[in-house]
């Protein structure tokens, strides 16, 4: 008898199709979140504050209660939800522009306050939804619609290393960076998301996972080449790893 080793998670809305472009790793990241919700039995008790960006329609994908937040404000909204209903499992799913550009204040202060919530941030080095502008994580040299000759320090400054930044906040319990460039790393990414969720369940404080993802459309690359770029360019600057873990003293 063959045993089933993969299924569409129960926390994914039945028979939906993502609105993402072909080969976009937002789809993998949301599936991993759903698998963790399933495995920890959180589907019925979870509330997500949805962000603005390509994942704006998260409520059409994940079968959990959700509230849409204005651009960048997901963690302010999540804070309110969690403080009003500490019995609920509360998380955000945000793009890097949402989390670390317009929302950097909200994100940083949620971590500094040690809010007992979880944030997942998709780093694809650009503003995907609006057509590929320079964002806070755009790599030096990277050509975008608003850095047509490539990002240079003189004009645009340096990209932010989000997982390291959040790790420096005293209220952070867990901060990690993972990548979706390979199947092995997808499996590691899931473990990190699960750990971040578990830290909230243990009441340890702010937990955070930055996920290196792709934007084949705005990078003008095939999905295959986009994964090469994550490996060859992004992972050298945004090195995967655990930057803070209060239980491991990292």
């Amino acid at each position, binding site marked *: 008898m*063959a*045993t*089933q*080793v*993969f299924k*569409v998670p129960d926390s994914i809305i039945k028979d939906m199709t993502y609105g993402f472009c*072909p080969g976009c790793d937002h789809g*993998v990241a949301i599936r991993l979140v759903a698998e963790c919700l399933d495995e920890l039995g959180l589907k019925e008790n979870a509330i997500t504050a949805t962000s603005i960006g390509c994942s704006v329609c998260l409520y059409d994908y994940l079968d959990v209660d959700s509230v849409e937040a204005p651009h960048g404000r997901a963690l302010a909204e999540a804070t309110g939800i969690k403080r009003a209903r500490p019995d609920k499992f509360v998380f955000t799913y945000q793009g890097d522009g949402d989390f670390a550009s317009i929302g950097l204040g909200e994100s940083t202060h949620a971590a500094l306050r040690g809010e007992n919530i979880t944030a997942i941030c998709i780093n694809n080095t650009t503003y995907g939804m609006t057509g590929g502008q320079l964002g806070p994580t755009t790599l030096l040299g990277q050509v975008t619609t608003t850095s047509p000759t490539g990002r240079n320090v003189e004009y645009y400054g340096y990209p932010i290393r989000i997982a390291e930044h959040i790790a420096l906040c005293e209220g952070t319990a867990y901060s990690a960076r993972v990548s979706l460039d390979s*199947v092995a790393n997808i499996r590691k990414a899931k473990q990190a998301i699960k750990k971040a969720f578990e830290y909230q369940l243990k009441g340890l404080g702010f937990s955070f996972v930055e996920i290196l993802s792709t934007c084949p459309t705005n990078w003008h690359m095939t999905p295959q080449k986009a994964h090469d770029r994550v490996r060859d360019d992004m992972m050298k600057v945004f090195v995967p790893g655990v930057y803070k873990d209060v239980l491991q003293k990292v």
Partner: protein
Amino acid sequence: MSHIEIDEQRCKACYLCIDECPKKLIKVGEKVNKLGAKPVEFCDPKGECLGCAMCATRCPDMAITKVFRG
């Protein structure tokens, strides 16, 4: 016998699964689905599938909906 199931209406033809399968059991099909994409097909005449779920883990769109091993 190890095998996979594909929901061809969900497939966006990114073809990431084709590269991922260690046994090269996934191929581009002839049909066009409602998304206007040419979905992939599972071709395993010799029963070589490992049930490793590499394809489903890589698929961004959950078009590979089930994997069975054994």
